């Protein structure tokens, strides 16, 4: 088991900078998830930890050892790929035992380790099958089994579930969570599915354009996003953003309003809000609730999506802005119906205005 430390990690392909200086501390036994939009460099970062890509700059430590120039096989890591990367001509048993075969491990020990991995993943009955006779979920289980037999200090997962259908994804997600608890190993997991990130992670790293946007526990990121990007990226449906004017402010709070938002007081703690009279207000759809009188927001219903447990309402505000509200109950709204909304002022976020 080991810590993983990234210090000023950079990666360029020729003149293209993909990772532009990333610092992350991953503690022993921690489950860390990298999230971010497609092309932000999640896989590249993970592959640098694995040793599959050269590190252009910075230092990478795994368990107090600088591993920049140490080959993948000696870093004490195991990796699970999105495309499974299991060997099609080998049986499940041979696949799981691959690393041991390569290392010429005695047969008895090999069998024991394979059985152990198969038991953990509940696939003892599949050992003699070939990959072509397995479902996607079972294939990914084989890949995880191969990783387990390596007995690595760090498990690396690159979108392991994105080739699976929704139901299976849920199963496998829970299985990986269980695996983390039972093995107590450090795990680094790349995904662009934020549900996976929120449910699995001890710590989420949000990446964008080769930079870390924010690092924190899932609830930190949800309740206290550092910036507009993180706020919009975490949570579904996405946070609503409205441009507002700052009317007055003191040290920790400000009064804001706009054409469609009545004046109210909001906490101020983010940077970039000192020298400005414009700001962006963020409200999560789940924090909005309809009221019959008053309310800070007013608009007309343009669309409702009834999901049974919740109702997502698309609202056009009086100044033309759109707003989503997610109500935790099943409710019926008429198209065009006027609706008044309110929210807990404590749960509103004020960001420096989006710079385009």
């Amino acid at each position, binding site marked *: 088991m080991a810590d993983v430390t990234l210090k000023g990690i950079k990666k360029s392909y020729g003149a293209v900078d993909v990772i532009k200086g990333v610092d992350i501390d991953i503690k022993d036994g921690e489950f860390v998830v990298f999230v971010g939009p497609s092309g932000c460099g999640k896989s590249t970062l993970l592959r640098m930890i*694995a*040793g599959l890509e050269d590190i252009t700059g910075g230092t990478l430590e795994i368990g107090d050892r600088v591993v920049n120039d140490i*080959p*993948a096989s000696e870093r004490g890591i195991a990796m699970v790929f999105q495309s499974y*990367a299991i*060997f099609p001509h080998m049986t499940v048993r041979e696949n799981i035992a691959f690393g041991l*075969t390569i290392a010429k491990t005695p047969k008895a020990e090999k069998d024991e380790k394979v059985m152990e991995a198969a038991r953990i993943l509940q696939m003892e009955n599949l050992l003699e099958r070939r990959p072509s006779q397995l479902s996607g979920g079972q294939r990914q289980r084989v890949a995880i089994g191969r990783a387990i037999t390596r007995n690595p200090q760090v498990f690396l997962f690159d979108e392991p579930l994105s080739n699976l259908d929704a139901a299976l994804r849920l199963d496998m997600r829970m299985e990986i969570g269980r695996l983390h608890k039972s093995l107590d190993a450090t795990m680094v997991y790349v995904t662009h599915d934020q549900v996976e990130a929120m449910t699995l992670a001890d710590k989420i790293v949000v990446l964008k354009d080769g930079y870390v946007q924010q690092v924190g526990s899932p609830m930190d990121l949800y309740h206290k996003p550092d910036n507009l990007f993180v706020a919009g990226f975490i949570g579904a449906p996405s946070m609503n953003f409205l441009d507002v004017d700052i009317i007055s402010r003191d040290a920790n709070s400000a009064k804001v309003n706009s054409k469609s938002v009545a004046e109210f007081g909001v906490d101020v703690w983010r940077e970039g809000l000192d020298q400005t009279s414009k700001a962006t207000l963020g409200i999560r759809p789940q924090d909005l609730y309809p009221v019959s009188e008053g309310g800070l927001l007013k608009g007309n219903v343009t669309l409702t999506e009834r999901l049974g447990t919740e109702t997502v309402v698309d609202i056009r505000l009086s100044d033309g802005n759109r707003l989503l509200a997610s109500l935790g109950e099943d409710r019926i709204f008429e198209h065009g119906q006027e609706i008044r909304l309110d929210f807990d002022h404590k749960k509103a976020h004020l960001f420096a205005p989006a710079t385009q």
Partner: protein
Amino acid sequence: MASKLKQSNRAGWLMALPGAGLIGLFIIIPFVLAFAFSLTNQRLASPNPTEFIGLENYSELLGLAVFTLEPERDDAGNAVVEDGEIQYPRLRKFTRKNAEFPHLDGKREWFSWQSGENRTVVLASDVVFMKALMNTILFVIVVAPLQSAIALTLALLINQKLRGISLFRAIYFMPVVVSIVIVSILWKFIYSPGDGLLNNILSAFTFGAFEPHDWLGDTSTALGSIIAMSIWQGVGFHMVIWLSGLQTISPTLYEAAEIEGSKKWQTFRYVTWPGLRNTAVLILIVITMQAFALFAQIDVMTQGGPLDSTQVLVFQAVERGYGKQDISGGSTISVILFVIVLSISFVQRWLTRERK
């Protein structure tokens, strides 16, 4: 609906017609004709009517017999020895209209060996054909493994991301693009006795110690020279097929193997080679068929000589059919060749079948 289907069918047949017609005209009809001719005494141009003669052509080509010659004995019953050599009755006595040995009639000595005082002689109805058959088989046995192995080696070397690698691809592929006739003429110069290129190079490297050799004029080197030149000419083509096979193997399989600490040859054994199975079957069959079809090199370089040491089946077929105007004989050789190649393909397919 029905008429629509018929129409589209007619259009389909019409579109298939040019291709199907050409295949029929140049492949199917000649094949059927060859098969039919092989059962007759058809000649290229002859005043006599063609007659059906059954399998006589085949027995004339394939007829074999083993005969043991006992030495000539003097009155005391001892073998007669002259000049240190045991004297035997002349073979002719048995093979020319000898009523006691009808099965030897018309046969000639192919090869023989000594066993005690006796000499065992293998007789063939058609010694030249037998030599051609043996040379062809020898050619295939040497060329098929050697050419595919060299082609695979080149493909592995070339399947890398290096600067200027495509130049090498082009160079290795070049002999394939040049007509085999031209290549053969060039290699005739290379092999030419006296101051041919090969002799010059060899004597330069040995500081003149190497005696110039008549590569194509010597029965012991003629076939070998043609084998070497044929491998050189065809290797680029098979390299390209291997290369396409290599590129179907998913790069993540290599990465998975790398992480497991697989050494180069282990990666080849466990990842590359199993991934090339289908390509290997294809290449073996293609090379075998091409090798059996050996003709142009012989026709240009040696005409089957010296002393029939480079006789091969296709050259014999052409030589008989057109040189000697014996179309039925040539057809028979073609049919035999077809049967051999077909059976070998089946055997190869069976040997390389996917084992469950």
